[in-house]
């Protein structure tokens, strides 16, 4: 299995949607070179549009954050994941195409 396939498997939205009270709708990622010049990953977690800012506290997304970080490490992926969060409507408004 290539590293890309391993990352796809760890970041599969289906698995992250199954976490308790998961706000996840979709997960997208791409290779990223961070501001230190290190190879890394940028992961965009797309959140349920029906959730308000008040619904989306860190406690709500922390299990998703943990599952991504621990899953990548357990799969031997040493690339640091820079995890971003947005609702699809926000991505559309901001013209962010992931």
């Amino acid at each position, binding site marked *: 299995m290539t590293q890309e396939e391993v990352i796809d498997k760890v970041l599969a939205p289906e698995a992250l949607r199954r976490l308790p009270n998961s706000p996840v709708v979709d997960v997208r990622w791409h290779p990223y070179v961070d*501001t230190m010049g290190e190879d890394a990953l940028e992961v965009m977690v797309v*959140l349920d549009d029906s959730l308000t*800012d008040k619904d989306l506290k860190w406690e709500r997304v922390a299990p998703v*954050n943990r599952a991504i970080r621990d899953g990548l490490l357990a799969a031997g992926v040493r690339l640091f994941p*820079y*995890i971003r*969060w947005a609702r699809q409507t926000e991505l559309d*408004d901001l*013209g*962010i195409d992931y």
Partner: protein
Amino acid sequence: MAQPLFRQLLNQARRLARLDPRRPQQANLRRAVSGAYYALFHFLIDEANRLLLGTTPGHAGLRNLTARAFVHAEMAAASRTFAGGTLPATIVRQVGTLTIPAPLRELAEQFSLTQDRRHLADYDRVTRFSRVEVLLLIDGVELALAGWGSVRNDAAAKLFLLALLLWTRIRDK
């Protein structure tokens, strides 16, 4: 009595992120990201100074002087290692095997993430932030700081604070 600088910065970041209820201005979100990073930056420097120089008022000048010696890139490099959960063999040889407790790992992750986002917020004109991303970043910093109290006396946490100042000079020894 005034709140510590890190607390003021974090509160300011939250206020900025909540401005403009309908359509947040990118300038406000960018300053909020930057403020959240600097809250964490100054908090960790305060903690490192406390470890190195104590808290007596007579040493305030020394603490202020030492605070200027911390380098963003060095702090980030140390944080990336601690976030990975494993210390280099060169460090283990000197200090023995240390387990990095979860709250320390989370703090190191948050520092790595927030510093990178701060660079983008301050310098990259292409990156755009959503409000929820910025609010979650601030929340993440807040919880990482809250978790610090449970590990601050742990040997790995003390090593982390030293590493923030000395990482490039100790990691390969």
